[in-house]
């Protein structure tokens, strides 16, 4: 690099053209305008440490994703509880008390009324627990244990909303055994 020392000195001696005095005035004006713009409340707001717009979009996207996740989870839970055999909807018309005016039942269903829409009982396990004698009985009884899941459904005809209750149940049945 020392080979070029002399050349570098010659280059440094060459002075670049100076800016015109007008440039200094123009920059001063521009800076004063910027100061005014920054100082005025209607001016451009001060820079924030992070971009609020991106943050807002990010939060909105996260909220939508969360909503989808919740809906998907509910749907999955609903599928798990899907019933193998669904009883047909109740053929009997919903019993709705007559209005105070004594008018007919049709069309008088309140929007808050839920009517039974179906009921199922799925037996998924049966266990024979053998013979036994009940208290004070001389006849033997066969003890059967049924494990079931019962589901009840109601529907609001006016709003279309439905309500479903499902629960496991266990039933023990004693069947008399007749010796022939």
């Amino acid at each position, binding site marked *: 690099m020392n080979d070029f020392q002399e050349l570098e000195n010659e280059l440094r001696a060459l002075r670049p053209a100076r800016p015109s005095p007008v440039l200094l005035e123009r920059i001063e004006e521009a*800076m004063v305008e910027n100061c005014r713009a920054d100082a005025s409340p209607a001016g451009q707001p001060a820079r924030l440490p992070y971009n609020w717009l991106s943050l807002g979009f990010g939060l909105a996207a996260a909220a939508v994703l969360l909503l989808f996740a919740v809906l998907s989870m509910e749907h999955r839970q609903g599928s798990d509880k899907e019933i193998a055999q669904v009883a047909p909807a109740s053929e009997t018309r919903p019993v709705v008390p007559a209005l105070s005016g004594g008018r007919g039942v049709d069309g008088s269903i309140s929007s808050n009324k839920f009517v039974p829409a179906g009921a199922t009982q799925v037996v998924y396990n049966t266990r024979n627990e053998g013979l036994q004698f009940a208290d004070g009985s001389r006849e033997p009884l066969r003890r059967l244990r049924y494990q079931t899941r019962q589901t009840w459904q109601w529907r609001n005809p006016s709003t279309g909303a439905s309500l479903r209750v499902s629960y496991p149940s266990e039933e023990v049945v004693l069947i008399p055994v007749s010796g022939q």
Partner: protein
Amino acid sequence: MDNIANHENWKSCFSEIGPGLLLFARQWTRSAADAEDIVQEAFVKFWRRNHTINNRALLYATVRSIALDFIRRDKRRARREATVFAHADSTVEPQFEWEDEAQSALAAAVNCLPHDQREVLVLKIWNELTFSEIAGALGISQNTAASRYRYALANLKKSLQPQ
């Protein structure tokens, strides 16, 4: 000159770096007036964003970015004016104030350098940036900046040797 934004006497700050900035901007413009527009925009932008003057690489990168935007706009303008100034001189040359024939020849030799070498030379000699700062301003590696500088000096030496 720690901080341009808080510098009460920014004029003295600009008077120090102004000629070098202008020379740097002059490489992309045909006229000194265009170069001054670029320097004004860059300096005010830099000042407003409250960067420290110590971050000189960013200041020169700002000048370069605005100059490149200017070129894009200027190309469109040049196409429109091409029919009017069909034989206009399209060379872009940095401006120097020379005192004798030797300096005039040196300035002419600098103007003949390839653009990438001249760019580094202008930042190194007349703006006193380090190779690290030059690399930051131009978006190149430090080694590339150093080698371009050496090539520029070698080319200058070669062109100034008596034939």
